[in-house]
């Protein structure tokens, strides 16, 4: 029997195990929407295509599955570009289907034509323009495979309208073989041995771990190895959640707004064990001062990440889970007295932690944003929350003050730093887990870049809580202007913002507000008790800064402290 392209699309997604997609209709994809009308494939219709892309990403981050979104040609497609770039920078598996004008019209500047393949070439793992209905099923199979294996990333499939109306025989491929794509999963045993030897020889080693641990589902192996070898762990922004914050071996986040101890440890270490992290400039600070006295082991599934920014002594290409498994095996057979070996190093770290913990000046009169996060952390203990963040100061305080117990509980735009990411990403996670507690930590600036998705939240009863740390300014920009531009607050003050309580109410959600420190706990508890989407407006101190801070281009140990 022959199916139309639109039917093949739906059948292929079902065969792929997709349960939910995020999208927005338009002319070029109407054949698909017609098929969705009475299909078992669930679809959430958003309010802006950027929202659909971020929701698909949030869904992927929370579940570990591939996120899917569907948009029309032209403006529908271009509206997803930020979302695609965001997923690319953070290596999140996603397949984005874009409508396209009929094959014969491509290149004619037809109505709502955009060369989305060209536009997204540098921010996709791969992309396809389907030119024959016959190829559609195979293309979809390949796209999901490529998006979710190796170093994951977004794949775009551009679907000309006549491909969707055309017919072909449908059989979803059982297996695929790509001669040009075979990611290396198994770490080379000799390299793993070499790495282990270096770990045995080190005196002040640090495990520096990133989002790769979460992608490869390697948290358990990481905890096992760290505990056995008594090596302290620092996580990147993307790696938060991969190692329990409360462990005595946890140093917290490193980098520009990392903890004093994490940054000092990276400066003083004699062996960096990098696992699924990529030595981003926000992590290394000034490159020539980074790891000056340290050897570097770098394990990553992407050979291209190894040796890109920092010289590596022992490269190990492979899945970090497999590599950690290898290290754990070696550690099991080995007789090193690790506790004794790293005692001195761990004592030094503890001394640093005592002397320079995260701190801020408390206040009885104005709400400090850090205080809100401490209270959010306290009041959500044991409730298995998933946190998302926007971008800016609020994001950094969330990274610093929330305690993480497991992977896939913290979703933030790490590589691209996209304001407007958090809310739709949180909704995507909520759609995956309707009953879990999902909280977006937002700034008043960021939340205005996608607040239209409140309508989506209400429509689909996604009871996400949005905690706005409202400082009436683009805080992170203001902070840089205070430090580096003589307090000339050029266009960063934003006192004209909507009444967030009324905004929520206008959409049929709930709005709450706290203006005094004494109200904070009460309002959080109230918000958590409501079975609907809630916006909470925390009116916080305007001129609060994020500390520690390593100014851009400075060495990691060159931190501004409170």
């Amino acid at each position, binding site marked *: 029997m022959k199916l139309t392209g639109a039917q093949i699309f739906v059948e292929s997604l079902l065969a792929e195990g997709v349960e939910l997609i995020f999208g927005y209709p338009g002319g070029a994809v109407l054949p698909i929407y017609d098929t969705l009308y009475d299909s078992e494939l669930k679809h959430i219709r958003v309010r802006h295509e950027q929202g659909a892309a971020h929701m698909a990403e949030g869904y992927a981050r929370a579940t570990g599955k591939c996120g899917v979104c569907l948009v029309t040609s032209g403006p529908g497609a271009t509206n997803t570009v930020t979302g695609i770039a965001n997923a690319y920078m953070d290596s999140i598996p996603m397949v984005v289907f874009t409508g396209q004008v009929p094959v014969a019209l491509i290149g004619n500047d037809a109505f709502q034509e955009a060369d989305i393949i060209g536009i997204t070439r540098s921010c996709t*793992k791969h*992309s396809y323009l389907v030119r024959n209905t016959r190829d559609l099923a195979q293309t979809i199979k390949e796209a999901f495979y490529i998006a979710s294996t190796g170093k994951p990333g977004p794949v775009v499939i551009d679907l000309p309208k006549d491909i969707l109306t055309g017919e072909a025989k449908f059989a979803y491929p059982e297996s695929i073989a790509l001669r040009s794509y075979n990611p290396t999963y198994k770490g080379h045993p000799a390299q793993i041995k070499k790495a282990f030897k270096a770990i045995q020889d080190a005196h002040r080693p640090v495990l520096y771990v990133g989002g790769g641990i979460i992608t490869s589902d390697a948290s358990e192996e990481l905890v096992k190895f760290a505990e056995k070898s008594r090596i302290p762990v620092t996580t990147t922004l993307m790696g938060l959640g991969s190692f329990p914050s409360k462990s005595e071996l946890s140093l917290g986040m490193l980098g520009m707004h990392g903890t004093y101890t994490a940054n000092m440890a990276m400066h003083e270490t004699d062996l960096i064990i990098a696992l699924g992290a990529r030595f981003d400039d926000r992590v290394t600070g000034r490159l020539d001062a980074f790891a000056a006295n340290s050897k570097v082991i770098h394990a990553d599934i992407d*050979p291209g990440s190894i040796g890109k920014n920092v010289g590596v002594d022992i490269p190990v290409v492979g899945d970090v889970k497999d590599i950690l498994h290898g290290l754990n095996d070696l550690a099991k057979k080995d007789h090193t007295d690790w506790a004794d070996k790293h005692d001195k190093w761990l004592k030094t770290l503890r001394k640093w932690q005592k002397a320079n913990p995260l701190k801020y000046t408390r206040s009885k009169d104005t709400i400090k944003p850090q205080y809100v996060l401490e209270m959010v952390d306290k009041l959500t203990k044991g409730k298995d929350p998933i946190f998302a963040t926007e971008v800016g100061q609020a994001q950094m305080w969330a990274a610093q003050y929330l305690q993480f117990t497991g992977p896939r509980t913290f979703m933030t735009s790490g590589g691209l730093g996209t304001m407007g990411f958090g809310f739709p990403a949180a909704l995507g996670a909520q759609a995956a887990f309707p009953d879990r507690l999902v909280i977006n930590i937002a700034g008043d600036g960021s939340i205005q870049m996608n607040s239209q998705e409140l309508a989506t939240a209400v429509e689909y009863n996604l009871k996400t809580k949005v905690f706005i740390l409202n400082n009436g300014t683009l805080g992170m920009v203001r902070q840089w202007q205070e430090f580096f531009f003589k307090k000339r607050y050029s266009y960063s003050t934003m006192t004209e913002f909507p009444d967030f309580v009324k905004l929520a109410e206008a959409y049929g959600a709930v709005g709450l507000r706290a203006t005094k420190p004494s109200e904070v706990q009460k309002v959080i508890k109230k918000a958590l008790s409501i079975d609907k989407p809630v916006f909470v407006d925390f009116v916080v101190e305007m001129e609060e800064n994020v500390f520690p801070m390593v100014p851009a281009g400075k060495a990691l140990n060159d931190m501004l402290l409170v």
Partner: protein
Amino acid sequence: MRHTISVLVENRFGVLSRIAGLFSGRGFNIESLTVGPTEDPSVSRMTIVTRGDNKIIEQINKQLNKLIDVIRVRDVTSETYVDREMMLVKVNATEKNRPEILRMTEIFRGKVVDVCPKTYTVEITGSTEKVEAFLEMIKPLGLQEVARTGKIALSRGVRMLTAKPGTKNNGK
């Protein structure tokens, strides 16, 4: 240092722009790039001549390998390989310099492929160095136009760059 990189790619729509985009997006330099079909109609071969220190060349190799349509990458610079480039050169032909053009063409084992009242067009094939040496010699005689193919290269002997079939998996 100058490197010559052989790349086998899927003969598909858009591959060239992916590779060109990779070089421009990451700030790698391209001295020349040639593409053409191979013995297998589904595979094209590119020869890319680029410059960079070891770190950059390593990144170029790795980033090329990361592209899904790239089947194999080999930096042949340090191997023994044969390479050729072809060039067409149009020169002012005057009463006075015609014999010199012909003499140069003969020394460089080129061919005059077109003769017009005011110009000669010469074809030269050889290594990049040879082709450039010819240009140097012919410049003073009144060089008008140049078209070059860019370099193509093959490793010598049994060393071969071939596309092996992928291993089957169910994509999970």
